[in-house]
């Protein structure tokens, strides 16, 4: 399967700070999603972004498919942003499986 590595593994931010999370993948992909897992375990879809750049409020994401990485930007972080952020990738020629990255655990302190 595809190897998906995320960095950093852990991140602690002061409320109001900005951050960049990175996702590297080992092979070309057809789909990529960013998820936020809240403390109750719910996985919330943030972005569906196989390529290009998207923005949603304080969050934005960029995927450079040719260089096999994606970035998630969080600006003006809030305590509610705490949780684990996962990227997941899919290759259609290997079946309909999404492979999850290792995750970044974010803690935002007031």
């Amino acid at each position, binding site marked *: 399967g595809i190897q998906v590595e995320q960095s950093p593994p852990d991140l602690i931010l002061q409320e109001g700070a900005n951050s960049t999370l990175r996702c590297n993948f080992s092979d070309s992909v057809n*789909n990529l*999603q960013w*998820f936020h897992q809240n403390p*109750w*375990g*719910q*996985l919330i*879809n943030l972005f*569906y972004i196989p390529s290009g750049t998207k923005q949603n409020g304080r969050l934005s994401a960029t995927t450079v498919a040719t260089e096999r990485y994606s970035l998630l930007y969080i600006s003006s972080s809030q305590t509610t942003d705490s949780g684990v952020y*996962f990227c*997941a990738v*899919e290759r259609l020629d290997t*079946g*309909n*499986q*999404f*492979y*999850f*990255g*290792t*995750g970044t*655990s974010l803690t935002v302190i007031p």
Partner: protein
Amino acid sequence: DAMVIQNPRYQVTQFGKPVTLSCSQTLNHNVMYWYQQKSSQAPKLLFHYYDKDFNNEADTPDNFQSRRPNTSFCFLDIRSPGLGDAAMYLCATSRVGSRPGYTFGSGTRLTVV
């Protein structure tokens, strides 16, 4: 709202006693997935159904089985739960060729005593 629903939210089962977790969807997605997520780890794909076609991951233990009686429902059966099977079990759906990709349920947290 169209969604993916998992029941129950929390499940406690005895060591070795069969247990079934359920997932239903109103999205009319043709693919349904089961993931296992242990503490501080990424979700790990167990298997998925593409319509009625069952696809098992190579490293999924035989102790785990699945059924999909119709488009809307999918079940995860654990035949003889061990202590190592305690985890969050996540169901997800997708429709091939559509966006935005996966939709996840809220998960079932399984405790084995």
